[in-house]
């Protein structure tokens, strides 16, 4: 576990200026302005430590894993499995066997829905999700309910953009077999009370599936303390490479599940008449895996650990509170979701009747990168009866000065649309 370069020597609190030096992409000019990257909720940038770890892997270590006895294959296998161990420790998983490599959060959630769902759901059963879910935590459940005959239910949200806990109480009956929810909304920014939600699910005998796509990169995560049954997250949102996601699961649940995909490495024996499955985690990892990407994610985890998840959460709280204040001053701008004290590092808003795409396009001309659209969460936009929002999001490398530039550019947009 190496600390990010910049902090090794000092061993003091990092500064954003120091952190930014590790992100070559941030030095860029866009349309003649310094890039202000306020889109980390969609995908984060990568520090040189992560890029170099993969670079080094391909230049010195690559071979296929698991089945080879030669030097490179053993080296690649060691790197690949050490990465798994490192990721397990990062979320305090009891064992690396419970860390399944996938492509992204979406595949992790599909794996649970298909494999656990097909084996455990039937007519009369209910699946509970929430109105603030990302499509990745909606569509797999719609599909599996269609296949199994189970019924899908949604926890509504309050006017403050939080889960309606009273409605939850009445929805969470003994019929619910699985409660799947996001730890943090990628539109509202709402941080959900994961521990409490897991406990409520368990109280009616349901399993709790946590979409950690937005929480794992930004908040400390302890799967055991929170007693999650499954946790899904993506490498690319937490400084790691694309093409890599994680599914954590409780051992006895994973053991009992049928495999998802079939192929190399996930079987113990293949006879023409049928096959026997391999042990965890390989049962769920068919074919040549994303080896370099595992190495890259492990380097990202080292980097996050080097900075400290508490520092990260603090930094984001500070900058989000500042952005909240500054954006609230813009007349005609409406912020969605709860106040700054209950939210993660993102703010989605609507600027009068200017369409979010137009807002984003105008900000882009000033070098400010924000997302616009439904952010793959149409139901929550339907709830607010708006087609789309503009979203600014913050990570370890963002500054208050970037927030100031965002606000300035919003005034320009207002002027342009006579608002």
């Amino acid at each position: 576990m190496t600390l990010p370069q910049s902090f090794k020597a000092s061993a003091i609190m990092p500064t954003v200026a120091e952190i930014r030096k590790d992100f070559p992409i941030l030095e860029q000019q866009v349309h003649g302005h310094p890039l202000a990257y306020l889109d980390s909720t969609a995908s984060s940038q990568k520090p040189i430590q992560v890029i170099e770890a993969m670079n080094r892997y391909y230049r010195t270590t690559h071979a296929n894993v698991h089945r080879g006895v030669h030097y490179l294959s053993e080296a690649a296998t060691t790197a690949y499995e050490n990465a798994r161990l490192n990721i397990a420790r990062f979320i305090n998983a009891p064992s690396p066997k419970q860390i399944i490599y996938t492509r992204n959060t979406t595949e992790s959630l599909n794996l649970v829905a298909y494999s656990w769902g097909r084996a455990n759901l039937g007519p009369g059963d209910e699946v509970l999700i929430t109105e603030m879910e990302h499509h990745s935590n909606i569509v797999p459940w719609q599909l599996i309910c269609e296949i199994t005959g189970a019924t899908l239910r949604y926890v509504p949200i309050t006017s403050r953009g939080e889960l309606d806990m009273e409605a939850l109480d009445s929805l969470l009956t003994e019929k619910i077999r699985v409660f799947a929810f996001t730890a943090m909304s990628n539109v509202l920014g709402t941080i959900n009370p994961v521990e409490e939600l897991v406990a409520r699910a368990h109280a009616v005998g349901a399993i709790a599936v946590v979409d950690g796509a937005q929480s794992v990169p930004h908040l400390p995560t302890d799967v055991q303390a929170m007693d999650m049954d499954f946790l899904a997250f993506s490498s690319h949102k937490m400084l790691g490479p694309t093409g890599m996601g994680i599914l954590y699961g409780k051992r006895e649940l994973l053991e009992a599940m049928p495999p998802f995909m079939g192929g190399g490495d996930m079987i113990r024996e293949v006879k023409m008449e049928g096959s026997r499955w391999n042990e965890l985690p390989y049962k769920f990892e068919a074919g040549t895996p994303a080896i370099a990407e595992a190495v890259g994610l492990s380097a990202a985890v080292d980097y996050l650990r080097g900075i400290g998840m508490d520092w990260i959460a603090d930094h984001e709280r500070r900058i989000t509170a500042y952005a909240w204040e500054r954006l609230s001053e813009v007349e005609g701008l409406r912020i969605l979701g709860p106040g700054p004290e209950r939210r993660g590092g993102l703010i989605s808003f609507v600027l009068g009747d200017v369409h979010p795409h137009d807002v984003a396009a105008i900000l882009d001309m000033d070098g400010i990168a924000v997302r616009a659209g439904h952010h793959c969460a149409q139901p929550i936009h339907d709830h607010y009866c708006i087609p789309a929002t503009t979203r600014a999001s913050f990570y370890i490398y963002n500054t208050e000065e970037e927030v100031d530039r965002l606000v300035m550019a919003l005034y320009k947009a207002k002027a342009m649309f006579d608002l």
Partner: protein
Amino acid sequence: MDDLYRENIIDHYRHPRNKGHLEDPDIHYHDVNPFCGDEITIELKLDGDRIAKAVFDGKGCAISQAAASMLTEELEGMTLEEVKHLDKQFILDMLGIPIGPVRLKCALLSLKVLKAGVYGLDEWPE
């Protein structure tokens, strides 16, 4: 910036032409840009194989809505055969601004809806 939001685009967006619905349209089609949620409905009233009246309705960004508004203005009097030959370049010339690859889909949405309504081709115009 001025390039991206020229006055006539803002004008068509703020004051759309031919926005609304027809009593009894001969052709009616609706679609959504899956990448951004923009929506366009186009309705046509025909006189033989010639477009007598074209209206649109929709929600979305200035680019998609202004393009739809401008397109309806061009359509009146056109034959359905002529509609078949409308292409990406036609829309770009009409808008008169440079458009990046992602927003291109916004610009082309109304033409896509039009072509799907007229002869059932569910494809982004090339």
